[in-house]
């Protein structure tokens, strides 16, 4: 029972997909600014990222914001893919509708990550297959066969609120051990997962490989996720949010610290997991990008095309698609970056790698 057994429903694959949602509509032109684009500086006189500061991605026509220096190292190691001008076909520019559509994976019921867990190949997911780090269940996990909202490991410990229960676990092990139904093996898996979580809680080991997580809920969430991945409790999907990107006013002071937090958190996670990153993919997404031209209060308004980042897996570091020109004839609506890549086209190959098998039509039923 002890040691190296695999609990995960997706068996030998043991892959984990981490979805980071940047709530509020992160400004794609600041996260991933265009390179060598004079129109950008004409319409963004104060907010344009100076050409010399942009971290260049080979000969791509866009680069990374200097606040992403930690992520830049990961890009250079070939572990980060940058997607400019990506988004959904929602043109309401409403946070609620755009987030909902993107988390559901189209104008359908339930979240795409929830459906992935229900329909992917292999045996049913384990009790700890999906975790939302935070206070509430996100739409993306709606309809999952098992999903837990947690803020700390204590959530799982059996009866932790009122005293020890080793005795109960022992007796449950005995009763289910004699059970010849399909619950017998399920109970053994569950007890093993519990034991591993307990061990994690007791030991509270520091991160590996010298990784240092910042003292904020986003980094702490990633740290918990890394611990659970390492403990092999069957974790297949993680959802966590980084909020506060709705930068209508004084954008630079608002989102620069957020970019640093995002970048440092992901870099610590990457370092912490080390070789395990081969079986882990992190997807960073946001409901929409923002208006190309800045407004008169040094902010930007709701737009269309935004940014996605993909870290880990077996993807080679690169830029997926390209930054469109920012001339009037090319922009959409009131002057927004057009959506050149549908977010689902980024997600589909990743889900395939994570064992979606023949279930893509269930995961993304429309389009």
């Amino acid at each position: 029972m002890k040691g190296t057994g695999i609990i995960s429903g997706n068996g030998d694959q043991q892959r984990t997909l981490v979805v980071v949602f940047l709530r509020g509509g992160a400004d794609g032109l600041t996260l991933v600014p265009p390179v060598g684009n004079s129109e950008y500086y004409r319409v963004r006189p104060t907010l344009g990222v100076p050409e010399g500061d942009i971290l260049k991605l080979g000969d791509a026509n866009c680069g990374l914001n200097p606040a992403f220096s930690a992520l830049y190292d990961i890009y250079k190691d070939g572990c980060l893919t940058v997607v400019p001008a990506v988004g959904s076909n929602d043109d309401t520019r409403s946070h609620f509708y755009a987030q909902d559509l993107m988390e559901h994976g189209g104008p359908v019921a339930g979240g795409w990550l929830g459906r992935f867990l229900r329909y992917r190949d292999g045996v049913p997911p384990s009790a700890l297959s999906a975790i939302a780090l935070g206070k509430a269940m996100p739409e993306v996990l709606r309809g999952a066969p098992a999903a837990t909202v947690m803020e700390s490991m204590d959530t799982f410990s059996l009866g932790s609120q009122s005293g020890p229960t080793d005795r109960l676990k022992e007796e449950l092990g005995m009763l289910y051990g004699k059970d010849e139904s399909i619950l017998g093996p399920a109970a053994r898996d569950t007890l093993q997962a519990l034991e591993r979580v307990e061990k994690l809680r007791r030991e509270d080991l520091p991160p590996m490989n010298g990784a240092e997580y910042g003292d904020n809920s986003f980094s702490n969430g990633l740290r918990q996720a890394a611990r659970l991945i390492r403990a092999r409790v069957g974790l297949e999907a993680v959802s966590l949010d980084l909020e506060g990107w709705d930068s209508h006013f004084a954008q630079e002071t608002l989102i620069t610290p957020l970019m640093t937090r995002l970048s440092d958190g992901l870099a610590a996670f990457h370092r912490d997991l080390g070789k395990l990153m081969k079986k882990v993919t992190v997807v960073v997404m946001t409901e929409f990008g923002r208006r190309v031209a800045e407004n008169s209060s040094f902010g930007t308004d709701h737009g269309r095309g935004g940014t996605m980042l993909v870290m880990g897996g077996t993807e080679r570091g690169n830029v997926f698609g390209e930054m469109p020109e920012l001339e009037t004839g090319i922009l959409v609506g009131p002057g927004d970056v057009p959506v050149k890549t549908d977010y689902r086209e980024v997600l589909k190959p990743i889900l395939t790698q994570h064992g979606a098998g023949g279930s893509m039509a269930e995961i993304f039923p429309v389009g």
Partner: protein
Amino acid sequence: MKQRESDEVSRRHFLRATAGLALFSTSSCERVEDWLGLGPKEGPVVPPSGEGIDLISHVLNRTTFGPTPLEYARVKGLADTEEDAVAAFLDEQLNPDELEDKRAQRAVRRFEAIHAPLAEMYEYKEAFLLEQLTRATLVRATRSKRQLFEIMAHFWSDHLNIDVSKKECRWLKAADDREVVRKHALGKFSDLVRASALSPAMLWYLDGRENRMRDSSEKPNENYARELLELHTLGVGGGYTQKDVMEVARCFSGWTVRDKGRFYKGRVEFHSEAHDDGSKVVLGHEIASGGGEKDLDDVLEIVCEHPSTARHLAEKLCIRFLADEPSKASIDATAKVFSESGGDLCKTLRSVFETDEFLNGARGQKLKRPFEFIVSALRGTRAKVSSEMDLVDYLIRMGHAPFQYPTPDGYPDVASPWTGTLLWRWHFAIALSRNDVSKEIKINQDELIEKAGGVAGLAASLLGRIPSKEELAAMERTGESLALLLASPGFQWR
């Protein structure tokens, strides 16, 4: 938007105030009833005494959300033999309107939003509506005396699944629950399907509202037509073709639901200019041109009377009440009654309960789904529940929150997809027995044990049989008999 928010705030305040009043009056009413001796009588509780699950416990396991100690004793007292007692109980359950159910009805009345007329549902916040509908569903499952009716409402909610997270289903599902699922749960199958076809929530959920053919450039939306044949009536392999799906979609074109206008939102309408009025052939039946809105009734008659529909429904009912893989004999017998009775659901259910498989087949071999597990634990422990929302957290963790299944096929009704839910079943068992679920959910363990005549008696009333030597020894060793019992393999099955 601002105006609407302030409207909503004041409405919420008003609701909260009236909800408080209703709650007060409910509890005082119940007390008056008790003083007058009109409350339920507390007879002596004699728990089951067989080594295997006895017939009464078996029938209560399968046709209700789980036995309560009192209900077990009451059913036993209905007749001299177990067989007669069970027959009398099923007679009662198949005539739900004649079963007095004031307590549960009063408890549900406080959820004002779900009783509102369709157009008014839009005045509520969608999260509030879902909360009220979910709580009402839990209250009814736990407290209603019309248990078989509630089981069937549960069954149809899956069979005609609508996920509230799709677009305006957020508001309209509560009306579908009332006007489709609950209205016809034990009625006639064809009435149920017709109500569903014209349910505003269903028109949103399966895109029927977008099915229009204003000119030859438009193609009908086939989504509802396909699910009607594949899931609601004939079933996969029921003998329909892609051509039939397209023809059914043509017949239904023009039916839509208003999505604008304060008083008209949610109203179902037939737009003849968006209807394909040519002739069609559905499953070999010709439907003449010019039928207009009558095409819908023609199609529903053809599909509801199709032999594949009888078979499909018989199989699903047998899976619900008999076994994950019911015998062909049971399915055939049920399908026959379904057909001959014209889809009379009471008669069909009666035939399920008369099968040899139901009366003499394996007992305790259907895995309780998480909702059934939680409700049966509340019923078996006579838990006092004043707020149900903490239960919903557990249901979400186990992937079984009502009205939140993402695809049209509804929550699975067999064991294997649910094996990953043990951890949270154990958590719930321990929390409930320690009164740790929430302040609003309380049980009295000492009283339960005392009334059952000891720990073994409590085990027997929860398991429907006397506990095995191992179970009894394990309970004694833990010192937490109830937690172990509710978490044990024996309590996971019905």
